[in-house]
């Protein structure tokens, strides 16, 4: 699969995600659902940062596993926040159920596109 096709597919899926988010806000003239997308966008950050700062460049030296674990903990907490915010908003009565589900689905689509994009162009060595 060529890189161009990957780029086009991922960007179109990302456009669908953003369309869902914007629709969930604009249909009901209520811009609170934009807050739901923030944790989904921030979710890949802790893993990337801790992976960057935990690898040492010395040969045969362990990684800092506590830092990696902290990154994973923060990742789980952020994803859970992304799915918990719409429930809280619906309970409190800020937004309706339809807007909450639409923005939640859109946010998870955006998160999936970000993770897949970070994986799509990694060159794997051939296994023999």
């Amino acid at each position, binding site marked *: 699969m060529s890189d161009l096709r990957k780029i086009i597919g991922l960007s179109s899926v990302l456009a669908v995600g953003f369309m869902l988010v914007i629709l969930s806000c604009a249909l009901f003239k209520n811009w609170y659902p934009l807050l739901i997308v923030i944790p989904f966008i921030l979710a890949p950050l802790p*893993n990337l940062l801790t992976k960057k700062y935990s690898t040492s460049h010395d040969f045969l030296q362990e990684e800092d596993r506590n830092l990696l*674990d902290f990154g994973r903990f923060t990742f789980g907490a952020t994803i*859970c926040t992304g799915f918990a915010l719409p429930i809280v908003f619906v*309970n409190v009565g800020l937004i309706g159920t339809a807007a909450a589900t639409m923005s939640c689905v859109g946010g998870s689509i955006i998160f999936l596109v970000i993770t897949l994009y970070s994986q799509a162009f990694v060159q794997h060595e051939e296994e023999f």
Partner: protein
Amino acid sequence: MTLLDSSIFRFRLSSLHVSSRSLGVYFAGIMFASAVWVFVDAALYSAFDYARNLHITFIDWIPFLCSILGIVIVNSIDKSRLSGDSFAYTDESLARKARFILFIGFALLAGGLGGSFTVFILKYVVAGYEGKSLLMGSANIISNILFMISATALWITGNMNDDYHYNLQL
């Protein structure tokens, strides 16, 4: 996890690094965030004035804060310091200090759980509230139980000795 490691799929899940240890840490993070949001949901519900004669005050927040403090204290202790006879740290006083701090952390966690039950019984059950108000009170208990689950999951996975994987980068 041979299915995820195989090259059947176009995208590999190597960024998530699925092993039992990391799965436990992910689970602990999810439990922590859901505990926070269960209680914040109840607090917001009372702050938006749906519960007219009953509100979540600072008394309800005390067990919540105790549990968070306990989790932070328990999981920030290096567990190799706990036994005084590990070969690198033969200091007995250091191990005693670590054990004392760990005891304080677990006491805070247990005190948070017990305090949530106390607040629920004294403020909601004895006063005779029903329905949604009782749910508001039980959110406190649920969140503290989830905090306990998160702390135990982190503690178990922290004690779990994964195979050390070395960083083979030149």
